[in-house]
């Protein structure tokens, strides 16, 4: 739609103003984009697209309430553009107005409503307003025809463990299990909902029956072991864990070297996502003559790290073989911090062979709490110092603070799922989200921070232990988080740059997907 021309420099059309605002936003000047869009709206108050451009500019300037008002105005004026409507719906969702968002979704054309992203959003919104059964039914009905079931299964678990409407979730998942009794993943989801609702006996019965029915299903075995561990039945937990170890280690070769060799062969047979490696390479700023080898090795780390994880978990009897390829740090650094009366928030990343540093830390007799989603390692060691990251609540955080002040050590990975209120870090000039637990715990407990992770160095593994910043007297929390994040992200960069074996596909995807 063309607009009246008021001067040569002013935008003449919707196309013009869209381009101008888009450029300003890309240049990091969202406030200027808002000003330009506002001026245009004044001249074209009846044009829905003008209001939508204003809405997008306002959102870029983080003025979400005004943004949703502008996008609502665009809809009121008859906006038909589906992307604009979806923008409005997502904004409503973000602003915690699920009912309004659902009304808008229901008004969309059927073919748009059936898009995977929209179904996921609707499931989330239905669950948020307490219509958990409807949410689960919609999700289950969509599952057979979705392009990628991963986000659907993840959301299903999220609904099960969120505890938002546990009884409804349990009822709905029970129905689904009755309908598809041969799906072990559904039994797992039901069990997780039962655990979230503290119905431990029912969860135990459900998982025990599932293990008998699906004896080779790793996750069922692990979940049962974890539940037994969490309710304190250590003997049964170890028994369940060792049953899993037998399944896990069944395909392993005799020595660690043989397993690593096999992992290399597997990697060379089926290179995965070579385009991802190509995209991440320029970030690393390594010499160009290393490019070919680096790209060739990108895929190998995943297999090597999995082989090491399986070795650590299933071959504790032969764990000494690992010692021959691991260079250990000066562990005295941790001892000194504790002797000085300072607790340590010890951080690792979701990179490299993550179980190696934990294995070596577990050999010391420090006052240590491991926080992990993979409690299995604790079970292998029979180590009650392990805590499930999924069950962290306010009370656990308070316990951690007391533990740090004793002083003790808390070992955790801040770059996992990043929760409701993440902080932003910067890795190779890309934003990544980090959980705020590590810096905030250190801040409120006056603890030292440190980095501890096993990193590939050519064919060997080096456990790096490095002290990070500690909060200073009178320091405010925001600059502290920034200081800590700079340290932690700096270590991540070093580790990724050190060897292609250290990077994980999920991490690479996170880095290349960001603007």
């Amino acid at each position: 739609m063309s607009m009246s021309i008021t001067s040569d420099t002013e935008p003449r059309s919707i196309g013009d103003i869209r381009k101008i605002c888009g450029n300003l936003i890309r240049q990091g000047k969202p406030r200027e984009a808002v000003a330009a869009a506002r001026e245009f709206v004044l001249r074209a108050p009846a044009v829905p697209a003008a209001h939508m451009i204003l809405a997008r500019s306002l959102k870029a300037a983080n003025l979400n309430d005004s943004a949703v008002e502008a996008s609502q105005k665009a809809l009121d004026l008859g906006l038909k553009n589906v992307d604009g409507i979806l923008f409005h719906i997502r904004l409503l969702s973000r602003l915690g107005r699920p009912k309004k968002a659902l009304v808008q979704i229901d008004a969309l054309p059927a073919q748009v409503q059936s898009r995977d992203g929209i179904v996921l959003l609707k499931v989330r919104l239905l669950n948020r307003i307490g219509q958990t059964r409807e949410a689960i039914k919609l999700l289950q009905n969509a599952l057979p025809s979705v392009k990628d079931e991963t986000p659907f299964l993840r959301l299903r678990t999220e609904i099960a463990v969120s505890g938002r409407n546990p009884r409804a979730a349990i009822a709905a998942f029970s129905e689904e299990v009755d309908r598809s009794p041969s799906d072990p993943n559904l039994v797992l989801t039901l069990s997780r909902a039962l655990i979230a609702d503290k119905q431990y006996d029912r969860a135990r019965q459900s998982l025990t029956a599932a293990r008998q029915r699906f004896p080779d299903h790793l996750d069922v075995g692990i979940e049962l072991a974890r539940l037994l561990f969490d309710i304190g039945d250590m003997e049964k937990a170890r028994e369940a864990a060792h049953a899993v170890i037998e399944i896990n280690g069944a395909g392993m070769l005799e020595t660690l070297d043989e397993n690593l060799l096999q992992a290399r062969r597997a990697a060379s047979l089926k290179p995965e996502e070579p385009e991802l490696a190509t995209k991440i390479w320029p970030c690393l700023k390594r010499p160009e003559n290393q490019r070919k080898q680096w790209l060739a090795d990108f895929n190998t780390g995943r297999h090597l790290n999995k082989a090491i994880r399986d070795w650590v978990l299933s071959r504790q009897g032969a764990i000494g073989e690992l010692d021959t390829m691991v260079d250990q740090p000066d562990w005295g650094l941790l001892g000194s911090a504790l002797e000085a009366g300072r607790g340590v928030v010890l951080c690792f990343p979701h990179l490299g062979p993550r179980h190696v540093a934990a294995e070596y830390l577990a050999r010391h007799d420090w006052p240590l709490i491991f926080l992990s989603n993979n409690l299995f390692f604790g079970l292998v060691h029979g180590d009650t110092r392990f805590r499930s990251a999924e069950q962290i609540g306010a009370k656990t955080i308070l316990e951690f603070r007391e533990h740090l002040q004793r002083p003790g050590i808390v070992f955790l990975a801040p770059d996992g799922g990043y929760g409701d209120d993440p902080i932003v870090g910067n890795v190779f000039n890309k934003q990544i989200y980090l959980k705020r637990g590590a810096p905030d715990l250190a801040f409120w407990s006056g603890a030292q921070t440190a980095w501890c992770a096993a990193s590939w160095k050519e064919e060997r593994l080096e456990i790096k232990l490095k002290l990070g910043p500690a909060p200073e007297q009178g320091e405010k929390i925001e600059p502290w988080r920034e200081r800590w994040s700079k340290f932690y992200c700096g270590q991540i960069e070093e580790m990724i740059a050190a060897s292609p074996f250290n990077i994980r596909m999920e991490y690479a995807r996170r880095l290349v997907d960001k603007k």
Partner: protein
Amino acid sequence: MSNNINIVDGLIEIAGTIKQEPVEADAGSAIMEQGLAFTSMEVLEFVIAIETRYGVKLRSDTLTEEVLATVGTLSDHVAGLLADQD
């Protein structure tokens, strides 16, 4: 009782400092769910601020789900600790 009311007001004031805006709450407001809607880390911040203001030690083993349920239940707990100090 009036002491408890003062503590409720004090807790609400602290909550406002943490949220960086005045909060509309009363003794019945939940701490974690709707109400103050604190995250786990905010609860830690809340506890530390309460300790500093009232000179009490809030030990994690005494902060049960029931104690951390509402502003009123936490206020009763703080009042109990203060009474023990007298």
